C-alpha cells in the first residue's frame, strides 16, 4: 500500500472536490441532455460545449487524486482536434474515455460527494458540538433535544454530551480520514485513469519494445563475441600455425631461425589463451559464476584506478537478472574509468520493496550522456527485466547513475 497524503491535504482535497461537484453536476446533466437531444441537432451544439467542460472538471479531479494518492492519474483522450463539429462529437461518442468521464461525473456528484461530505462532517462535528453547547446554554428549550431522542436537562449533561461528541467524532475522523480518502479518490482515479484494457495495451507495448531492444542487445552481444574470437584467438592460432610450419621448414637449414619462430609461436599460444579468457569473461565472468553479483562488482572495482566506496547487498537473483545487473554496473564503472577523471566513486546496492536499487556515482567531470551507446545499452539490458535507469550528470559532476530492477523472488 503506497503512502497516502497527510490529513491536512486530504481535508483540502475534499473541500475542493465538493466545490467541483457543483459544475460537475451541471455539465453532467447538460451532457446527458445533449446526448438525448443529439438526433435533433441542438444536442450537438450543446455537447460541443459540455464535453470539453466536463473534461476540464475531470482534469481538476485528476489533479486532486494525484495529490492525495501520490500516484500518477493520467488519461489520454482520442484526438478530435481539427475535426468538423459533427465529426468531433462522433469521435467523442466512440471514445471510451469520454464515457468514463461521464460515469465519473455521476459517481462524483453522488457517492463521491457523499464520502467527501462524510469525512468533512466528522471533522466539523466536534466544532458544532461546542457551538451547540453554547446554544443550549442560551436556549435550552430549543436545543435540549439533539437527535430528537436525547433530553438534556442539566449543564453537566450538556457538558458530558459535548465532550463525548468531541472525543468520539474526532477519534472517528482521525481513523476514518485516510480510508475514506482512499475510497473516494481511489474510485476517482479508477474512473479517470486509463481503463484496464488501455493499461494492458500499454504494458504490451512496453514489453514489445523492451523485448525488441533486448533481442537487439543480445544479437549485438553475439556479434561482438564472434568478432572478438575471430580477430583475437582465432587469428593468433592461425599465426601460431604459420610460425610452427615455417619453423618445421627451417629446422634443418637454420636452427636458430627455427628457434626464434618456435618462441614466437609459444607467445602466440599464450596470447590466444588470454584472448579466449577475456572473451569468456565477457560472456560470463568466472567471479560472477562462482560468488555472485556482489563479489563480482567488488572484483570490478578493485581493477579501477579510483578510490571506491562499496555498500553492496543483494538478494538471491535469477541468473539472467544477475548477469544484466552485473554488466550494467560494469558498463558504468568502465565509463568512470574511461571518461570521468574522478578521484573517488561509490556503488551502493540494496533491495527495498521488491526492487533492487543500485547507485553508481563519481566525483568526476560529469557530462555523461544517457543517449550514448554504452548507457543506452544499459537501459535496454535492464528494460528486458522491467528495470529502469536514470542518469544525473551535470557538467562539472558529480555523475550519479541510478538503476532499479525488480527482484521479487
Amino acid at each position, binding site marked *: 500500500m503506497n503512502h497516502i497524503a497527510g490529513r491536512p491535504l486530504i481535508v483540502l482535497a475534499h473541500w475542493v472536490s465538493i466545490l467541483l461537484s457543483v459544475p460537475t453536476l451541471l455539465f453532467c446533466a447538460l451532457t446527458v441532455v445533449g446526448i438525448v437531444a443529439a438526433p435533433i441537432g441542438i444536442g450537438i451544439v450543446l455537447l460541443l460545449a459540455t464535453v470539453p467542460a466536463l473534461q476540464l472538471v475531470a482534469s481538476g479531479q485528476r489533479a486532486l487524486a494525484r495529490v492525495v494518492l501520490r500516484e500518477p492519474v493520467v488519461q489520454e483522450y482520442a484526438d478530435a482536434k481539427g475535426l468538423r463539429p459533427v465529426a468531433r462529437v462522433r469521435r467523442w461518442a466512440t471514445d471510451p474515455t469520454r464515457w468514463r468521464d461521464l460515469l465519473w461525473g455521476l459517481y462524483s456528484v453522488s457517492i463521491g460527494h457523499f464520502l467527501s461530505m462524510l469525512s468533512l462532517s466528522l471533522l466539523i462535528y466536534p466544532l458544532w458540538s461546542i457551538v451547540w453547547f453554547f446554544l443550549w446554554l442560551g436556549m435550552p428549550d430549543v436545543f435540549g433535544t439533539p437527535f430528537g431522542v436525547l433530553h438534556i436537562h442539566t449543564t453537566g449533561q450538556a457538558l458530558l454530551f459535548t465532550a463525548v461528541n468531541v472525543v468520539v467524532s474526532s477519534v472517528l475522523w482521525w481513523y476514518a480520514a485516510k480510508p475514506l480518502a482512499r475510497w473516494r479518490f481511489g474510485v476517482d482515479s479508477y474512473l479517470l485513469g486509463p481503463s484496464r484494457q488501455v493499461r494492458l495495451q500499454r504494458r504490451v507495448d512496453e514489453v514489445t519494445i523492451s523485448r525488441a531492444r533486448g533481442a537487439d542487445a543480445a544479437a549485438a552481444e553475439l556479434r561482438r563475441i564472434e*568478432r572478438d574470437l*575471430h580477430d583475437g584467438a*582465432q587469428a593468433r592460432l*592461425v*599465426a601460431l*600455425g*604459420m610460425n610452427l*610450419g615455417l619453423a618445421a621448414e627451417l629446422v634443418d637449414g637454420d636452427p636458430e631461425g627455427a628457434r626464434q619462430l618456435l618462441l614466437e609461436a609459444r607467445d602466440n599460444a599464450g596470447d590466444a589463451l588470454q584472448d579466449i579468457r577475456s572473451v569468456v569473461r565477457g560472456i560470463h565472468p568466472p567471479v560472477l559464476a562462482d560468488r555472485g553479483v556482489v563479489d563480482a562488482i567488488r572484483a570490478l572495482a578493485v581493477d579501477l584506478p579510483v578510490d571506491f566506496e562499496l555498500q553492496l547487498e543483494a538478494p538471491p537473483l535469477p541468473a539472467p537478472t544477475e548477469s544484466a545487473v552485473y554488466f550494467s554496473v560494469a558498463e558504468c564503472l568502465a565509463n568512470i574509468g574511461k571518461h570521468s577523471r574522478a578521484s573517488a566513486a561509490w556503488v551502493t546496492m540494496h533491495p527495498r520493496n521488491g526492487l533492487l536499487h543500485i547507485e553508481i556515482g563519481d566525483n568526476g567531470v560529469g557530462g555523461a550522456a544517457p543517449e550514448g551507446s554504452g548507457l543506452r545499452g544499459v537501459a535496454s539490458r535492464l528494460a528486458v527485466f522491467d528495470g529502469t535507469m536514470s542518469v544525473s550528470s551535470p557538467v562539472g559532476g558529480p555523475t550519479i547513475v541510478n538503476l532499479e530492477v525488480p527482484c521479487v523472488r
Partner: protein
Amino acid sequence: MRAVIGEDHALLRDGLERILRAHQIEVVASVDNAPSLTRALREERPDVAVVDVRMPPTLTDEGLRVAIEARRERPGLPVVVLSQYVEQLYARELLEDGDGGVGYLLKDRVSDVGAFVSAVRQVAGGGTVLDPDVVRNLLARRTEGSPVDRLTEREREVLGLMAEGRSNAAIAAALFVTEKAISKHTNAIFTKLDLPVSADDNRRVLAVLAYLSA
C-alpha cells in the same frame, strides 16, 4: 613471381609475407583494407593475390568482393582467398566466372607451409585449388540417386582430390598408385558424370566443380 597480400591482422600479414619471401615469391604490396587492396591490384598487377575474406572497412566479406571485382576488370587474375570459415557460397561466387586461377583455403592450411606455397603457385599458374573442407561439403551435399552415387569408393576419393585442384600426378602420389591408374579413374568418373573429358587440369577441375555445385 610477384604477390599482393590483403590481410588486416598485422600478425598474419607478417606471417604470410615471411612465408612467401622464404619461398622466393616477391611481396610487392601488403595492405590491410579493401580500398588499398583494390588500388594495389590495379597498380601492381601482381601474378597472384592472397586475400583475407574479412577486411575493413566493413569487416564482412570485403576481401572477397574486392577479389571478384578485380577479376571482372582483369579476367583470370589469380586470387587465393583465405578465410577462418568455409563458406560454400563464397567458394561458388569465386568460381562463378569459370576463368580458373582461384584458390579458396582455410587460414589453418597456411601452417602446412609447403602445401600452401604450392597452392599459391598453382593458382598463379591458372589452376584452381579448393580447401578439402569445401570439397567434402560439396560431395556430402549430393542427394540420393545422384550420379555421384554411381561412383565407386575409390572414384569418389579421386573426385575429391581432383576438386581440391590436384594434378593427376599429385593424386597418384596421395593414393599410392600409378598415374596411369588415376587417369583410368578420371576417365571413368567423367563418363559416369557425363562431363566432357579434357586434358587440361584446370578445365577438368572446373567441370567437376560446376557439376558438384550445380
